[in-house]
Every structure is written in C-alpha cells, then in structure tokens.
C-alpha cells in the first residue's frame, strides 16, 4: 500500500469510528458543561485530538473507550480555562461523571438507538415545540414570548417533554436488555 492510500484509509476509518461514537461523546460533554453552546467548542477539540492521535491507537476496536478518555481530558482542560466563570462543575464531579459514563457505554448506545422512536411518538405539537426550542437562533425567552407562554410555563413544557423522552427511552431499553 502506498503511503498516500494508507493515509486515506486511516482517514476513512477515523471518520467512520468517530461518527459512530460522536453522539455519545457529545452527550457526555454536554452533561459536564453548563453552557450548551460550549459543547461544540469542546467537541471540536475532541475530534481534532482524536484525529491527530488516531495513528497511535493500535487496537481500533477500542476506539470508543479511547475517545472517551480524550473527551474527559478535553472537558477538564476546558474547565480549567473557564475556572473563573459562573457555574463550573468541580474536577471531582467531572471525574465522577467520566467514570460513570465510561462504565455505562452500552446503556447509552442503546439509549441512542431507541431515542428516535421515542421522538417519533411525540404528538406533533410537542415535536414542533422541541424543534423550535433547540434552534440556536432563538433564545428560549424570545420563543416563550412568541408562543404566548410565560418563561416558567415554557420551561415546564420542556421539562415534561424531556422527562417523557427519558421514560420512553429507558422503558424501551429495559425491554431489550441485550
């Protein structure tokens, strides 16, 4: 194999593996950060570091766990940078979240695999609300006003939908414990 085509293969492998783990990594990163908007920033770093070091990962079947360590490290690094910001979780808590997330990889995989079905089951009005609420070009405050809801009532709706989704997701994976 020429060097060039070897590199191409590596790139393809990397993309495939990274994409199949991306949502899960993102979920973990999101849990550790107060500001949703910072998730992308950390994920960029995670993808870049993983890509740079991919060559050194001998056993590619371990990609998930390996990428997880990188994500955890990047969250801690980011956290140090933001240590003086408001509402930054302590390193201890992030380590604990990292341990738990690392031990629950298959649970999260299964959650992701059933979540689409749970989303499909949402009534249209709720589905619409959630689509709007998670657009990054609307602030939730503006959206609440647009929908004629108080902020409190709006958040209550979001809470109910998310709780419903979590119940549905966990119910489904309990039916099929693998």
């Amino acid at each position: 194999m020429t060097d060039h085509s070897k590199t191409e293969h590596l790139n393809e492998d990397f993309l495939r593996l990274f994409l199949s783990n991306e949502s899960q990594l993102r979920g973990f990163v999101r849990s550790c950060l107060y500001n949703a908007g910072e998730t992308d920033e950390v994920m960029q770093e995670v993808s870049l570091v993983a890509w740079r070091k991919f060559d050194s990962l001998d056993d590619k079947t371990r990609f998930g766990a390996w990428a997880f360590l990188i994500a955890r490290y990047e969250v801690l690094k980011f956290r140090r940078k933001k240590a003086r910001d408001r509402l930054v979780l302590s390193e201890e808590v992030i380590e604990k979240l990292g341990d738990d997330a690392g031990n629950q990889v298959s649970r999260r995989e299964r959650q992701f695999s059933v979540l689409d079905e749970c989303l499909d089951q949402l009534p249209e009005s709720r589905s619409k609300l959630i689509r709007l609420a998670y657009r990054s070009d609307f602030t939730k405050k503006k959206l609440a006003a647009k929908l004629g809801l108080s902020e409190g009532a709006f958040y209550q709706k979001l809470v109910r939908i998310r709780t419903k989704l979590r119940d549905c997701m966990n119910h489904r994976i309990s039916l099929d414990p693998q």
Partner: protein
Amino acid sequence: MNQEELIHAYIDGRLSDVDFPRFEKLLKESAEARKMLLDFGVIESKLNSFGQQEQVNTQLNEGHTSVTKKLLVFAYAATLVLLLGFAYWLHQTPSPIARIQSSEGASWESSLPTSVGSDLVSGTMKLQTGLATLFMESGAEIVLEGPAEVELISSMKIKLLGGSCVVDVPQNAIGFVVETPHGYAIDYGTNFSVLVDRNRDSSSFEVMSGEIAVHLPNGNSEVRLNDLEGAEIRSGELLASDGFGTKPNSTLSAKGQVKRVLSHENATSVIRNNQRDLYLSEELLLVKHSESLPSFDRRAMMEFDLKEMNLSRVKQVSLSLNLVTDYPRTGFRAYLPQENIFAVYGIRESWESGLSWENAPQPDEGELLGQFTILRSEQSGSFGIEGPKLLDFLRSGGNKLLLVRLTSELHPSGLVHAFAGATHPNSVPPALEFTMK
C-alpha cells in the same frame, strides 16, 4: 427544587448561583443523579441536532439568508467534512476572523475551508459562482456575489480584489474597513455595497442606509456618503455618483452629517494595587469599583485628537464606548448590583504610559460630564454619554476623558467592566460622534 428540577435547570442554563452548590453536591454524592444527568445528556445531544436540522430546513425554505441571523450552526454533514479541515487551520494557529455563514450555489477556489460553518483565518478566497455570506468576528456581515475575490485581513478589515459584495455593519463594528485596489471605505454603521470592476479599473461604493467615508489609497481625499449616495474611484480620482451609475453628482449633501473621531492611541487604565502587568490589558479599558476589596479598583482614561474638527459647526456630540467580553479575569456578574452607574469626567491633565493609580488623573480634578448605566445582565453593546456639558468641555479645548464606575460590587470578585481600548483587535475604540449643523 428537587433533584430532577435541579438537573433540568442546569440543562436549560437557568440554575441560580444559589442552587448551584446544591446541584454540585448532589452530583458528587448521588450516582443516581449522575446517571440521570447523563441520560439527559443523551437527550440533549439528540435534541440539539434535531433543532439544528430544523434551522437548516427553515433557512433552505426561506431560500435566502437573513442579514440579522448571526449564529450559525454546523450542519451535521458539514461537520464531517470539517473534521479534516480543522486540522488544517489549527496547525496554522492564527485565530479565526470570520465564518462562512451560508452559501447559495457557491463554488470556490480557495486555500481556506469553504463549507458552511467553516471558521476562516486571514487569507484570500475566490468565489466563482453563487452567493456566500461571511460573518466576521467583529459582527460585520458580508455577502459576496460570485465571481468575486476577497482577501480577509482582520475581523475589522477586508480587501475586495474583484467582483462585488454587500456589507452590513452593526453598531459595535463601526470602523469596519473595505479596501479595494483603488481606495478604501470606512464604515460608520450602515449597509453598503462595493463593486470592483477590473475591466473599467474602478471601484464603486453605494450606501443603502447609514454612512461611509470613501478614501483614495493615500487617505488624503475623503467623500462622505449617506443614504442612497454613491461614489466611484477611477484613475486615481474620487467622484461622487448616483449609485452604480456614472452620473456625476459633485454636490454631496453635508447636512446632518455625522463625523466620528476615534481614540486611536492614548487610552489606558490604572489599578489601585499598581500591578499593571497582571491586571490590566493594553487592548482594554477596565473599570471597577469595590468597597469591600478596593485594591482591584480600576479607572480608565482616553484622549481624542480633535485638531481636524471644526467644533463651532457641531450641533451635538456623544461619547460611545464598546463593552466587550474578552477580558479573562472578568469576575462574576451576579456579584454586581442590577444597575451599574458609570461617570465620565473631563480632565485637562495629561498622563504618561505605565502610570500609577496615585499619579493618574483623579475624578475630583475633573468636571463631571455625564453618567450612564449598564445592567448587570448586559454583556456587550455600545454605551456612553451625550449632551451640552460634553460639547462645552470639548469647545473649551478639552480632549481627555476619565471613566469610573460609581457603584460598588456587592461582593468581592464582581465583574470588571471591559471596554474596547485604542488597539482592540475586533471592536471599535472609544469614539466621539459629532452631528454637524
């Protein structure tokens, strides 16, 4: 709030400073709570991509790009392409100055990344066909119309080498510069277009609304353009025109003209503990007042060069300062009162760089010219004073101002207010804005 409510409040970004320690303790002690948070992390991750998809769909359906839409989200597919793109620009280390916000039928010839969502560093891009919207770090938005070639110089400056673009500049990016091979335009808060015609060897500028100043490359000649006015530079000459036509219209109206003078050099801050290296930045004007921990108090000074201004023709004047968020030791906004009052004093004493708190001009040596308020919820924007006192002070030969915060923080570690200084890389320095008679 119960456990679950705390987690939801955290996810929604509406957890209060008071509840945060409880939330953190909960996560530390309860494996069940961590599990719940991680479950919701799965849902958040999914819903965010759901929302992004919705956003992309809406934009596609609209079929055009709204100029006010600032935030862009990486379309999922674009992220993948980008993965390899990141490596390219991160190896180069310069920080991004713009981002490709959207593109419609765009085909590029460029060494910079060209997919939607790409961050761009300085460099040249050639748009062969279609339309592309660039969102500059400074807030300016540029719609390029292919074929066009543009050089990104900084978040406050581009050079259009060929073709045309429309520029929309918000208040906080006033001073944005578009260069062409024939001259340049400085924006004063506006929407304007530029056309570089290589065959004709000319550059044309047209203002939709607002004001720009068009200059020849040497900076000597200047034409101010207001709503629906245009100018052309050709053969080293700057001529007024009606929009992109060539009809000469040399009597540009000067009525209600606004002139702006920026504090370009002499602007600085002082700190009570005099540890300038640690707590001050040359790019920023830092202001703070604390009754409980005064050693970190800061005040700022700025000087304006008004030699070119004919103050007798001025009807009105205002001072505008741009609040920015890039000071790293910024402190907590929660520790500020809701309303923070600032005072601007006119001072006559000069100062030297690197000066101490004690030797710098003091408020009681100056005259109070006005006050303004910044709510603690406000993170950026333009603030300042106006009125006859400021104008009288300037007319009497004064050209130096002192800025202090009158209200104290409520607890130590409250926010330090940072305004763009004379050399801020992507925000406009302090400005005096004159409305002429």
